[in-house]
Structure formats: C-alpha cells, structure tokens
C-alpha cells in the first residue's frame, strides 16, 4: 500500500511532501515520545502522532519512515512543512484522534510491526 492510498482512504490533508506520496508503507507505529519512536519504529512505517515540531521530522527522516500523520488538528509549523518538502517526506493531517487513525489503518490492512 502506498501513502497516497492511505491519505485518500482516511481523508487526510496533505500538508507537505506531494512528491513522496508513492512511497510504499510497510507498517505503522504510533507514539508521541520520540525515544520510543527511535527505538521501535521501522523504515517504511507510517507514524501517527500529535506532535508536529521540527524534531518529529528529524526522527522520521533518520528512520526513513514513509510518512507522518499528525492527529487532532495539531498545527504543522511552516519550517516543518518547508523541510518536509525539501527532504521529500509526506506530512498528512487530520482533526481525528490518534486512536481513530490507527484503527482505520488497521482496517486498511496496515500491519503493526513488533
């Protein structure tokens, strides 16, 4: 499954990384604590979080994640958007909760990777 299909199915707003929507999604991960993400998330995962500051992007890029989904309508700062576009990673937003997004991803068949 690619990022674009998830964005469409969950009606997510694409705020950055238009060119990265064809990235393949290998699984999902959700946490707001960056060290947890660093320790457990995998390359190609889509990361569901309500954090949207520059370090979220740094973590996502270091781990080569497929996309970041920012929940609960958390505003994404302009410098984060600019950097995501430059580094070619998608940031998708939704007013829904993290739990809603994760259950929708599960229904789509995005696997949890332990």
């Amino acid at each position, binding site marked *: 499954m690619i990022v674009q299909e998830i964005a469409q199915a969950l009606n997510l707003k694409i705020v950055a990384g*238009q*060119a990265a929507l064809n990235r393949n999604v290998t699984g999902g991960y959700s946490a*707001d*604590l*960056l*060290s*947890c993400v*660093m*320790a457990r998330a995998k*390359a190609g995962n889509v990361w569901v*979080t309500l*954090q949207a*500051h*520059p*370090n*979220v992007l*740094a*973590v996502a*890029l*270091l*781990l080569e994640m497929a996309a970041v989904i920012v929940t609960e309508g958390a505003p994404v700062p302009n*410098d984060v958007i600019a950097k995501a*576009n*430059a580094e*070619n990673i998608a940031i998708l937003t939704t007013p829904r909760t993290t739990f809603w997004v994760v259950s929708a991803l599960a229904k789509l068949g995005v696997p949890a990777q332990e």
Partner: protein
Amino acid sequence: MTTPEITHVQKLDFRVGQVMTRQLITVKAATTLLELKELMRKRRISGVPVVNGTGDLIGIISLEDLLRAFEQGAVSGAVNDWMSRSVITVRDSDPVETAAQKFAQTGVGRIPVLNAEGRLVGMLTKGDITRGLLAEVQADTQDEEIARYRASHIFRDVQSDHTTLILRYNVQRHDFTQGGQASSKIKRALTRLGADPQIVRRAAIAAYEAEMNLIIHTDHGGQITAQVDASQLSLIFEDDGPGIADLKRATEEMGYTTTPPEIKQMGFGGGMGLKNIRKCADQMKIDSEVGRGTRLEITILLHAPEASAARNT
C-alpha cells in the same frame, strides 16, 4: 505551493543557455515560401526565425504559417508576407522555468533565445528543456554514484598504517530546530562510506539520542566527534556541564529522566535515551562529573552483520 518538479529545476539552477539549440537555422524576409518549405523538409523543423541583413531577429515563421499561405494559393510568395512579427523571446540567462512558463502560457512550439545585447543566439523547444533536464538528472545520479564509490574505497585507496576519518559537529544548547542535523550528516557519511544499512540505522539512532541530550541537558551545548576507520565507528559526545548527578539511574533505569516539563511536551524526556544508545552500541562508556561535564563514547563495529541482525529483530 510549487510543484516538486519545479523545485527540482530551481535546485539545479538551470538556465536557458544551457539547454537551447545553438546551431541556428534562419531565413531572410525575402526567402521564398518554396525555399522555406524545402528547408523545413530537409532539416525536419517546424519553425524558423527570420533575420535581417545584420542577423537581428525580425520575425518567426512556422509550418502553420506556411500551410495557411499555401491554402490561400500564395505559392510564389515570400516569408515577409506570412511571418509573425511579434515574437515571444527569452534571454539565454533566464531560468528554464521562465521559458517553461512562456511555453505554457502562449502555446508556441519554439522560442528564439536572445543574449544580453538582444542578438539571436539560439532556439528553444520544450524537447530541449526535457533533454537538458534528463541529462542533468543523469549527471547528478552519476556524480552521486562516483562520490559514493570513491568514499567507500577511501580506506583502501589511502595508504597508511591506520587511516581514520574524523568528523566534528558543534551542537548548541536548546537549538531544537537544528536537532538531529549532526546525526543525519553522520548517517549520510556512513552510507557514503558503504556501511551496512542496519549498522547505519543503529549509528543514527544512537547519534540522535546523544545529540538531543546535548541540546536538552547541557549548559553550553557540546561537540560530537565521529571517528571512522575501516573496522569501526566511534562517536564521542562531550560537554562542559552540568554533569549527570545519578549516572547509574540515568544509564540503567528505564523512565528515569531529568528533562524539564516544557521540553517533555515536545516528546522528549522519556528516560530512554541512554538506554536506547546502549542497545545500539557495541560498546558504551560514559564519564560524568557534576560541575565538570559529561563524555560519552560509543563504538559500533562496521562489519558485524550477524550481531546487528540479532539486535534488530
């Protein structure tokens, strides 16, 4: 928002002069339509700039103009009566985007290119832009491949009893916007040097956690030194304070943290950093003294695929 393609062209800083066709085929106003037809057929072109005796651009005539003339029975006419006199032009120093926008806005198939003095120096088609762009992208990829090949052979190419590459990065206290920059540069360097992706990942995680510790906890930031040789990577993180009061809890107790609440709100301070680092490292050594500072050194072996595979499952 600009489209990603345009962003890429901007990044390449592509000018019209780099992609245009320089071999000019021109006609004069007095050239007959039959001569023009032969020229277009032989050279397989569908539009020709018209110049005066001194080579200045005075118009352009296309295959459509020629067809229109023939339809109206003007077989014996000359270019002068059928050419367009208001010609859309670009400068050779214009960015390629400017030309691309002119193509999109006007629908013309070719645009004469003028230099700063207004002299005709070339012709530009959409095909020229595409070809130039493709060549540039290919050159980019090739450069990256060459760079990667050279870097990955550095330890074989450079003759010494022991070659070590030393990379230094300065990290500022509370500079959250730059957080992770040094780690991502270390990651890129290791990739270029040809390290195994799993090992690069471990190094990136350890480097990031330690870099963020310098940003979050130090009095004045600190310095990262990455030393790479043919067999291992060592990462040294040094700062001059405040020092870790309870080193045992900080390195062993999951969840133990001294991160202030306002920084915790950004998702830091889970009390996991040093523990994550330990998991990623083959060796970890930390010395800290309150009032003096902290020195963390981690070692990651570059050729231990079995060990890294076990660790990452």
